[in-house]
């Protein structure tokens, strides 16, 4: 590959220059002229715009902030962004452009799993450090040398929920899952890990993501003897309808929702029916409720305050938080490596230990490019139309 070759040569030259500069004149002005280029490709428009929009806003906000504070290793950051509209094909095109034309030093982004998975082979081939903001477990399993990710996986949500069920003594449950991508993936993950927690799934129902009524499925769950709790993996308005139907049928077993509906919108849509529903969510959602000795509290309250100051009260979302974590991880790695040379940054990234982000404490290793544990999720219960932290794992 000539492209790879020239790029390598170019990078080596830059690195050599940087080393020479650092050796002779620390904080040399010559290096400061050359910005560190961070490439990003996000679904700012299109169906996944609720992901890409806060992600881009977060990146822009923090790149400006870092530059105002003197940049990284004395060099300013430059953000190069392309909008994919949620299309994996466009993501591939834009990533090629980021690598070949813009010659970025590292890439963060990929709002959806489809986009992230599509571009991963490019990252491996051209050896560019890449941090994905997408949910799928497949991004980091099996581990690829140059790819990392910040959000929790569906499996961890299942584990968190089952942990809570076990604590409350529930071993026989029912599931009602949406047939959209998110619901299907989480349904499969939960079925996979249920035996590890001694949990038996007695009834397994599904509904279409745009269905208007789920009482039929819930009636068969209600009539299944022995069901102690019900879990509803799903996204969008489906879980809100399930919750309303659940109360309509007066089912007594506790209802668990997934992190897919961890937003104020869910409470608004489900109304009074949401009372008592439990779900796993990132700490960002309950920033103010965390105990003061919680090491994650300053991170999440800081990010929330900064974002809401710029974009309005209540605008913060966990998705923007994933972008914050991704940018900070790459910046930290560049600082540790003392350069933006790809190999050094990748190695530093892989050795990241104890980074406290909005998603939880990140400990990367050779075999783990996600670095989070199920404890990064907090179990919340909806009471009086608001989130209440029901188990504070650290406090």
């Amino acid at each position: 590959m000539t492209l790879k070759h020239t790029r390598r040569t170019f990078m080596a030259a830059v690195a050599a220059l940087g080393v020479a500069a650092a050796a002779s004149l620390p904080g040399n002005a010559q290096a400061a002229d050359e910005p560190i280029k961070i490439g990003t490709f996000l679904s700012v428009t299109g169906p996944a715009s609720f992901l890409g929009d806060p992600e881009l806003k977060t990146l822009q906000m923090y790149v400006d902030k870092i530059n105002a504070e003197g940049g990284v290793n004395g060099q300013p950051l430059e953000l190069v962004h392309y909008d994919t509209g949620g299309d994996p094909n466009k993501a591939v095109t834009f990533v090629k452009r980021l690598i070949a034309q813009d010659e970025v030093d590292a890439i963060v982004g990929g709002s959806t799993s489809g986009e992230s998975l599509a571009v991963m082979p490019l990252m491996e081939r051209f050896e560019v450090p890449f941090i994905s903001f997408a949910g799928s477990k497949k991004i980091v399993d099996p581990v690829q040398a140059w790819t990392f990710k910040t959000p929790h996986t569906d499996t961890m949500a299942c584990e968190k929920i089952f942990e809570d069920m076990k604590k409350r003594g529930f071993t026989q449950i029912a599931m009602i899952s949406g047939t959209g991508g998110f619901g299907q993936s989480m349904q499969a993950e939960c079925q996979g890990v249920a035996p590890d927690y001694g949990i038996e799934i007695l009834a397994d129902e599904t509904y279409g993501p745009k269905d208007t009524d789920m009482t039929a499925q819930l009636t068969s769950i209600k009539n299944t003897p022995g069901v102690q709790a019900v879990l509803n993996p799903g996204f969008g308005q489906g879980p809100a309808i399930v919750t309303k139907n659940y109360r309509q049928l007066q089912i007594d077993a506790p209802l668990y929702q997934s992190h897919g509906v961890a937003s104020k919108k869910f409470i608004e849509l489900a109304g009074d029916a949401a009372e008592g529903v439990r779900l796993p969510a990132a700490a960002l959602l309950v920033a103010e409720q965390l105990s003061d000795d919680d090491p994650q509290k300053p991170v999440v309250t800081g990010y929330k305050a900064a974002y809401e100051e710029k974009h309005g009260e209540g605008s913060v979302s966990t998705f923007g938080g994933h972008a914050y974590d991704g940018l900070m991880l790459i910046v930290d790695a560049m600082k540790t490596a003392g350069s933006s040379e790809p190999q050094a940054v990748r190695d530093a990234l892989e050795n990241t230990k104890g980074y406290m982000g909005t998603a939880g404490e990140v400990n990367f290793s050779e075999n783990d490019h996600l670095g989070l544990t199920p404890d990064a999720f907090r179990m919340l219960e909806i009471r009086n139309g608001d989130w209440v932290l029901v188990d504070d794992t650290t406090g």
Partner: protein
Amino acid sequence: MLGEFIQYLFSGLTSGAIYALVGLGFALIYNASHVINFAQGEFVMLGGMGTVFLAAAGVPLPLAVVVAIIGTACVGFALEKLAVEQTKNASVVTLIIITIGASIVLRGAAQVLFDKQFHTLPAFSGDEPINVLGATITSQTLWVLGITALIVVVLQWFFNRTLLGKAILATSVNPLAAKLVGINVSFVLLLSFGMSAALGAIAGVLITPITSTNFEVGIMLGLKGFSAAILGGLGNPFGAVIGGLILGIVEAFGAGYISSEYKDAMAFIIILLALFFMPSGLFGKKGTERV
């Protein structure tokens, strides 16, 4: 066992009433122009979203409902005036394609004008479910069923007893002959688009407390409403309602007794069977021309 059966029936009635109400709008435009208006689902969306956003802007809810319905009717007028009428003597197929385009435009406009979030409205008479023989039904479903029935009665009266209604039917049978006997054909078309838009908006307001709404909700509702209308026999308001209810009940019993995985498949099999053996639908007029 009985409780379970009744619960499935109620589930079916809830979805079915929604499909029926949307299907009515299809029937109305088809009656006037033989056009299947694929923007009908978007009228439903506009009614719901319009009400939500007017209410959020501080307009009292009943007034917001009325304004949203009138506003949607105006969109219906505009669609007829600006798109359908401009084509002059275009074929029905061309007009149908225009409505598909209109649906995309309306969806995009709603995404920009409103937002991309889901929204809901409070149920008209509270969320407390009603218990019947061990099964439950929400009061909002009864509202949907009641108003659907009312609309069917009014439409039957309108088409069979009023001069304007008969003029619409006459235009549908033969536009040229209708023109010759002094019917203002373009006015009839305009009116039928406005009426069915208003009907869609009413449906949107009624079902939003059950299903919630966002800019895309019209795609699925339009598809199911269309299915209801062809199952019942296009152009027959009573048929659209029966078609919708059958569709909803088949889905609910399928999901309850067989498997929720095949719920949609069973509904579509019913439609296919109906169209194989009764190509003009359950209550459609036989033959190709009305007499």
